[in-house]
């Protein structure tokens, strides 16, 4: 058997985040085999470096960071969809008011023309701003999904389950990145958009009956990502059926995707 000493060294370099190249691949392979020595080294090193990091001079973070976070958190659950216009309405109103006041001061004949133009500009600006905020929110959500998935993949307990197309959509495919404690992310491809009034519903199969795990829609390109909370019992399989839009407690529609 090979000495473990090399891995002690690799573990230390990994702990300070400096491992690269073949060493990195080799160590991560070793780690994935579940080496308890290296897991302990990493845990202790993490604590030591953490304490070291905390030993610097404390600093008070800018208060607007907390305010921004609390606003995001308030908007993120339970609906997950914040009304996109909320932030810009008062701003647009203020801009429009300023435009009106400016027009009054200019006075006379030009006033009404300026008012109209400034009003138009304020509306245009507000529309652009709203669009930007929407795409920013969408991008942030997307990044959060990918980061969530990558985070899960770092955990050796995470498995990737392939779902194959079935019934009406043999071309469809999906992958579930699953962790028994943390839940998972489903990534779907080539699934046709659900007909009006319908949605796709995910099921976890482990207990006596399929457990509903949320509904989702696919985009025009047939893709979807769907976050899944962990059920009480670890599931052995996953399946997706076509159901009424509001979702149902037990599957009724055709199976479109299933793991084997």
């Amino acid at each position, binding site marked *: 058997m090979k000495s473990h000493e090399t891995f002690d*060294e690799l573990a230390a370099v990994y702990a*300070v985040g400096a491992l690269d190249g073949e060493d990195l691949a080799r160590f991560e392979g070793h780690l994935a085999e579940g080496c308890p020595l290296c897991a302990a080294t990493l845990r202790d090193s993490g604590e030591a470096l953490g304490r070291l990091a905390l030993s610097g001079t404390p600093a008070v973070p800018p208060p607007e960071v907390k305010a921004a976070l609390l606003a995001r958190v308030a908007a993120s659950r339970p609906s997950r969809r914040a009304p996109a216009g909320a932030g810009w309405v008062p701003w647009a109103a203020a801009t429009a008011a300023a435009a009106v006041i400016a027009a009054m001061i200019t006075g006379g004949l030009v006033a009404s023309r300026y008012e109209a133009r400034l009003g138009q500009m304020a509306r245009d600006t507000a529309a652009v701003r709203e669009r930007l905020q929407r795409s920013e929110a969408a991008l942030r959500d997307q990044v959060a999904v990918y980061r969530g998935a990558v*985070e899960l993949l770092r955990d050796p307990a995470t498995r990737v389950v392939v779902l194959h197309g079935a019934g009406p959509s043999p071309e469809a495919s999906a992958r579930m990145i699953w962790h028994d404690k943390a839940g998972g992310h489903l990534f779907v491809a080539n699934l046709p958009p659900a007909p009006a009034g319908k949605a796709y519903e995910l099921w976890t199969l482990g207990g006596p009956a399929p457990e509903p795990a949320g509904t989702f829609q696919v985009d025009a390109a047939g893709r979807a990502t769907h976050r899944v909370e962990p059920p009480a019992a670890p599931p052995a399989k996953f399946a997706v059926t076509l159901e009424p839009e509001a979702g149902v407690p037990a599957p009724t529609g055709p199976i479109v995707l299933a793991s084997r």
Partner: protein
Amino acid sequence: MATAGEALVRRMAAGDREAFGAFYDRYAPLVYPLIVRIVRDRSDAADVLQDVFWEAWQGAGTYDPARGTPEAWMITRARTRAIDRVRAVRRRGETFVPPLDEGLAAAPAEAGGDAAERAEDRGLILSALETLPQPQREVIELAYYAGLTQTQIAERLEQPLGTVKTRIRLGLERLRDVVRRAT
């Protein structure tokens, strides 16, 4: 036994926003100085701080107490994101690796809450880094705070890769010893 921090993470995983506020108050003053130290720009640091806590809110369900304290969890996350930011900036060629002896100059002195309680340990552990032989301290700082990989460190110091690895291992072993004795 679950610590107060672990309890907060568990409540966050269940969607408890109040717990998130308390979690922020507890850990932001600890990780913010580290982020400032790594990214060296206050407005960048505030961005990174926000990202880090947002991820913690979303990833609370993946926290596993067996793999470390919430403190270490947040520190790792903060350090990773801060280094990501530094590397992105470095790729654009806007900055260079700061000289080592600037070391601990980055953050202002305003202690409070949890941070103050750790004052005793802090002295001990800080001096631990200082008592490391300079070659070991140097490689750990280049890796952990400047985000250089082992290969980059070897090039920068003009040392064989094996030497760099050994120095990191020896330095880290000593740090672990100090922390073990302090707790």
